[in-house]
C-alpha cells in the first residue's frame, strides 16, 4: 500500500515538473534577455539608444541608435498588414460564406500548405523573383528594399490571417444571417455588414497575430530587405529589428559593446512581442465571450 502511494506521489511530481518547466522556460528567456540587454542600454543611455538615428557599430567612433530599426520594423509590419489583411479577409469571407464544400476544402489545404513553407524558401523566391522585378519596374539601382520585405511579409502572414478570420466567421450564428436575409438584405450585404461585424474580435485577433508574425520574421526579410541600417524609406535598403540581431551576431566579438547592444535590440523586440501577445489575448478572450 505504502509503495503504491509513493508511486502516486512520484508520478504527480514528475507531471508537475513538466508543467513547471514550461513556466520556467518563459522566465529563463525573460531573465536572460533582460540581464544581457540592460548593460548596453545603461552604457549607451536609454534615449540615445532608442532614438538615435545612426547605427554605426563598427565605425572608429561607434554610435548605437536603433531608431531606424524600430521604425523599419513598424513600417514594414504596417505595410504587410495593409497588403495582407484585405486579401486574407476577403478570402476568408469567400471560404466561409460562399464557397462550395469541395472548393473550400481544396483552398483550405492550399492555405495550410502556404503556412508550412519554410521562411527561407520565401526569402529565396523573393530574392530571385521579387527583388529583380522591383528593380526593373521602378528603375532602381537595387530592388532589395523595404517594399520587397513588405510584400514577402504580407504573403507570409496571409495563411494565419485567413485561418483565424475563417474560424471567427464560421462561428457567427446562422440566425443573424437568416434574420438579415429575411429583412431583405442581399447576400453580400449580409456577409459584410452582419457577419463580419459579428466576427470582429476574431478578425482583430487575426490582424494582431499577423502583426506578431511579421515583426518577428527574420530570415526571409534578411534575404530581401538589403540590410543597410538606413532610416526607412520605401525603396531603400533597410534593416529590421530581427535582422539587426541576426546580421551582426556572427561576427561581433564576445563581451564587446556591439554584441551587448545586439542583446538590447533583442530585448526591445521582445517587449514589442509581449505587447502584441497581450493584445492578442485580449481579443481572443473577447471573441470567446462574444460567442458564448
Amino acid at each position: 500500500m505504502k509503495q503504491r502511494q509513493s508511486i502516486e506521489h512520484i508520478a504527480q511530481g514528475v507531471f508537475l515538473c513538466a508543467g513547471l518547466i514550461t513556466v520556467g522556460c518563459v522566465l529563463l528567456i525573460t531573465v536572460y534577455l533582460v540581464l544581457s540587454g540592460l548593460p548596453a542600454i545603461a552604457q549607451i543611455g536609454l534615449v540615445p539608444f532608442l532614438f538615435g538615428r545612426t547605427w554605426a557599430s563598427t565605425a572608429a567612433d561607434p554610435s548605437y541608435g536603433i531608431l531606424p530599426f524600430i521604425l523599419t520594423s513598424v513600417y514594414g509590419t504596417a505595410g504587410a498588414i495593409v497588403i495582407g489583411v484585405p486579401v486574407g479577409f476577403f478570402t476568408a469571407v469567400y471560404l466561409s460564406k460562399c464557397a462550395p464544400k469541395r472548393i473550400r476544402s481544396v483552398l483550405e489545404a492550399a492555405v495550410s500548405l502556404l503556412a508550412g513553407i519554410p521562411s527561407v524558401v520565401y526569402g529565396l523566391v523573393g530574392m530571385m523573383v521579387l527583388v529583380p522585378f522591383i528593380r526593373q519596374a521602378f528603375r532602381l539601382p537595387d530592388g532589395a528594399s523595404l517594399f520587397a520585405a513588405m510584400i514577402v511579409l504580407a504573403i507570409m502572414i496571409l495563411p494565419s490571417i485567413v485561418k483565424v478570420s475563417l474560424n471567427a466567421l464560421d462561428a457567427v450564428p446562422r440566425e443573424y444571417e437568416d434574420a438579415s436575409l429575411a429583412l431583405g438584405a442581399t447576400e453580400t450585404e449580409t456577409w459584410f455588414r452582419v457577419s463580419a461585424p459579428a466576427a470582429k474580435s476574431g478578425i482583430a485577433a487575426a490582424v494582431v497575430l499577423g502583426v506578431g508574425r511579421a515583426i518577428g520574421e527574420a530570415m526571409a526579410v534578411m534575404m530581401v530587405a538589403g540590410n543597410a541600417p538606413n532610416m526607412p524609406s520605401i525603396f531603400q535598403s533597410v534593416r529590421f529589428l530581427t535582422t539587426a540581431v541576426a546580421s551582426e551576431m556572427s561576427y561581433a566579438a564576445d563581451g564587446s559593446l556591439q554584441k551587448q547592444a545586439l542583446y538590447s535590440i533583442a530585448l526591445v523586440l521582445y517587449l514589442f512581442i509581449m505587447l502584441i501577445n497581450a493584445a492578442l489575448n485580449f481579443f481572443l478572450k473577447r471573441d470567446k465571450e462574444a460567442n458564448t
Partner: protein
Amino acid sequence: MTSRKLYDFIMRLFMFLSVALTCGLVLFLIGYVLYKGLPNITWKLLSTSPSYLAGTIGILPDILNTLYIVLATLVFVLPLGVGAAVYLTEYAQNKRLVDAIEYAAETLSGIPSIIYGLTGMLIFCSFLGMRTSLLAGAMTLAIMNLPTVMRTTQESLKTVPQAYREGAFGLGAGKWRVIRTVVLPGCVDGVITGCILCVGRILGESAALLFTAGFAHALNGLFKGLTSAGATLTVALYVYAKENGEFEIAFAIAAILMVLTTCIHLAATAVGRYFQKRRSI
C-alpha cells in the same frame, strides 16, 4: 437600387480577386520552386558531402543533420509536452497554476524564432558550455515546440471520455495506473499529430538554429554529430543562397523542403482523419 447592385458587384469582385491571388500565389510558389529545383537534384548531390578539392557540393551532411536534430528535439519535447498536458488535464487543481502554465505556453508560441536563437545561444552554448552544437539547437527547438505538443495532446486528452476514467477508478486503480492504462493510450493521436507538426516546424526553422547549431557541413555519425556544429537543410539553403551565391543548390534544397513539407501536411491530415474515423466507431 443601383448603388446596392454596385456594392454587391464590387464586394464579389474583391472576393474573387483575393481568392484568385491566394490560389495563384500557392501555385506559383510551388511551381516555381519545383521547376527551378527539381532538375538540380541529382544522386550525387544527395549522397556526397561538399568537397573543396573536387569543387563539388553535396548535401548529405545537411540531410543527416536535419534527421539528427529532429530526433533529438522529439526526445526532449515529447516527455515535457505530454507531461505538462497530462498535468493540466488530470492533476491540476490550483487554478492559478493552470493559468500560469497556459499563459506560459501561449507566450512561448508567440516568441519569434530569432529570440529563441539568441537565448538558446546564451543559455545552452555559453552558460551550459555546450558550444555551437546540434544538441544545443535541438534543446532550443524543444522549448520552441513545447506549446505545439502540449496543445495537441491536451486537445486529444479532452476527448477521452470521463466515464473511462471513472470506470477505472471504480475498479480500484490508482491515478497513475489510470493515466498509464487509460488516459495515455487514448491520446496517442494528439501526440502523433503534435510530432508531425513539430517535424514540420523543425524542417522550416532557420533563425533559431543559425547561432545554436551553426553551419558546418561535416559528415558525422549520430553521437558525434550531436556534439558538433552542423547545418540543417534550411540553414544550408540560407547559407548557399545568401553567403555563397550557389542558387542552383539553394533551389534544389528548396524543392526538397517543399516536397517534405507537403508530405508532412498530408500525413497530418491523414492521421487526423484516421483517428477521427476510429473514434466515431
